[in-house]
């Protein structure tokens, strides 16, 4: 994402850690290509090239319901024009959702179960994936799309564990979006009947909103976090189909009530399934694998309908 204005034309890169192939992803294309070029000039638009005589940087956004894109400094240039309303009635995320729908159809057609793993940073997503790859790669093909703002540290860990992985670096972006997944899928080429993990950017807020075409979102919630995390981040817990309650090996050392945590999870999402695991010791992992196998069976049956 462009650090100047926030548009996602620049800064997101994708690296195939098997081949080393690297590409830029224009996750949300530039603003219709109109007078907003991000060329080799280095985002200069923010610093002056579109400035007008009556334009100045100004404080904005303090009014809760109005934001003026540009302060016209009292110059009214609308007097010679008439206004015309165009009704749109469109979901703002329609484009993301359309791409996500394509991804979902592509995955379903190939009987691939795609799980979108979300959590706060440090909840143990990568360690969990390492364990899953070690335990399940003899049983079924596993693929990973690894999302982080920067570095391919986690992607390298996944590759070392033995799964093909495409690293997506979002730059300043706080979540993966459907376009990134579409691009990563075309690079990763997960095989028919495989299990695809999308390790989202560690963040319990933003990834909740973006459909990636996944089969399910799974929140990893660890015992080193507060029991009230589901209440603090209800959107994410409410969007999840599964909560993977991780680091249960640490419980003897912590002042943490599993009962209260479970209550809070179910308060936000009464239908969610919860599995308690330790990715480190392997405790509880069989329950997770059974859940994954059940999802695969469901996806296969769906494909026959």
């Amino acid at each position: 994402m462009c650090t100047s204005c926030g548009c996602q034309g620049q800064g997101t890169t994708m690296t195939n850690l098997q081949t080393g192939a690297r590409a830029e992803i224009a996750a949300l294309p530039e603003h219709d290509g109109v007078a907003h070029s991000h060329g080799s000039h280095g985002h200069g638009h923010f610093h002056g090239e579109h400035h007008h005589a009556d334009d100045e940087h100004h404080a904005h956004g303090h009014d809760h319901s109005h934001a003026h894109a540009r302060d016209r400094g009292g110059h009214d240039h609308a007097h010679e024009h008439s206004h015309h309303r165009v009704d749109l009635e469109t979901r703002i995320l329609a484009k993301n959702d359309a791409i996500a729908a394509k991804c979902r159809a592509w995955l379903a057609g190939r009987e691939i179960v795609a799980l979108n793993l979300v959590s706060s940073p440090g909840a143990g997503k990568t360690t969990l994936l390492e364990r899953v790859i070690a335990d399940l790669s003899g049983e079924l093909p596993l693929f990973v799309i690894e999302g982080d703002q920067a570095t391919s540290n986690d992607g390298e860990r996944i590759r070392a564990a033995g799964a093909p992985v495409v690293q997506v670096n979002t730059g300043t972006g706080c979540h993966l979006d459907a376009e990134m997944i579409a691009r990563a899928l075309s690079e990763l080429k997960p095989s028919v009947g495989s299990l695809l993990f999308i390790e989202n950017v560690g963040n319990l807020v933003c990834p909740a909103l973006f459909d990636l075409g996944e089969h399910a979102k799974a929140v990893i919630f660890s015992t080193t976090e507060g029991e009230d995390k589901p209440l603090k981040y209800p959107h994410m817990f409410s969007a999840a189909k599964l909560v993977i309650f991780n680091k249960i090996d640490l419980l003897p050392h912590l002042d943490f009530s599993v009962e209260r945590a479970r209550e809070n999870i179910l308060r936000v999402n009464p239908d969610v399934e919860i599995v308690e695991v330790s990715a480190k010791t392997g405790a509880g992992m069989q329950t997770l694998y059974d859940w994954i196998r059940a999802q695969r069976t469901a996806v296969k049956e769906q494909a026959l309908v």
Partner: protein
Amino acid sequence: MHELSIVCSIVELASQAAEGRSVRRVTIEIGTLSGVEPEAVAFCFPEVARGTPVEDATLDIREIDAKARCEVCGAEFPTPDMLSACPCGSRQFQRLRGEELNIKSIEVEEAA
């Protein structure tokens, strides 16, 4: 800050719909349970809009309060947060509104 992505989508949708004309006003709806902060959207909008057909536009944000219908007692009640229960105590309900995230309309300039 997912609001940045949201604003990018708003600017892109409005720019496309404007078909080359200059946009004077963009009207959007944000439900109170949509997970999107209206203040953050308003904050990002001017910088994302700069250099696009939307750069002179006013952003009108209509906030929509959330409401649900209880599946036990049938009452409609406001749900100001994700954890609200029906006054009857039930947590089984259907959300009627409050999750909107829509671009309603734009006003464009037509040369006289």
